[in-house]
């Protein structure tokens, strides 16, 4: 497990740096929905890489995956219910 984790560290770091650089370059384009979506996509990819390789969720057992899954499910509920409320209001902000 140790050797495997170490072998992934450098490629993960390089991938993260490339993705971060890509996000910064994208931010120089004119603002628009596509630019926002692409930057968020690259951000999500970076988050996934950190979680899987640096935090070793990839090598974690089922219990770790349950904790990770439950955390994001709760976060999803937080966002879904709150945004559902705000976005369905008929108020002019």
């Amino acid at each position: 497990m140790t050797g495997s984790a170490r072998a992934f560290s450098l490629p993960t770091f390089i991938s993260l740096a490339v993705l971060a650089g890509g996000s910064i370059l994208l931010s120089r384009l004119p603002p628009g929905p596509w630019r926002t979506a692409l930057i968020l996509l690259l951000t999500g990819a970076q988050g996934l890489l950190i979680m899987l390789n640096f935090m070793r969720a990839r090598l974690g057992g089922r219990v770790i995956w349950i904790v990770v899954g439950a955390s994001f499910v709760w976060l999803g509920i937080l966002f879904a219910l709150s945004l559902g409320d705000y976005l369905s209001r008929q108020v002019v902000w």
Partner: protein
Amino acid sequence: MTEAAILVHEQFDDLAQQRRASTFGMWVFLGTELMFFGGVFLAYTVYRLIHHDAFVEAARHLDTTIGSINTFVLLTSSFFCSVAVSMFESRKRAPTLLLLGLTLLFGIVFLVAKGFEYQEDWRHGLVPGPAFAYSGPEREQAELFFILYFIATGLHAVHLLVGIVLIAVLMVLVMLSWFRPRREVAVGTFGLYWHFVDFIWIFIFPLFYLLGGT
């Protein structure tokens, strides 16, 4: 009595079980931290949707150069931390100490750069409150953006500061365990915390700095 037996607390069968429990506990804690920062990200999302133009314009007043440098600084510290954990597991204590030291150093560099950035924000009148001197349109909505910006980056900085103190403590424990192992040094568990702090910054940076455009 073997070294592994000395390191095991009485409630565990063996060192492997103890480490699994420690890792599990940290993941559960990080789950609560995700919800904690999730609230800040949610507030940002809601108000960005409502005051889109004001948020895009306000984000242009942040220093993307310092933000970008800090992103690479934190990613590098995470890399050092990851290798430090592997080295510790391979029982290579000297490289572990060196890599933990580098992780610490890059964490401090991040905080110093953040401090300079806050100073610039203050000088340009971007700190919400009586001294807020934003010159762009939709002043009140822009102030809301900066409130969220200082909450998110401030909370992140506090977490980083805690991490820096923990690294210093870990380095002392690793040094002590070199001579006489008394208890398990949870370098791997700490690594999870440090990477999580990096994980949070990975989202703060684009949301506040990049989505506004440069």
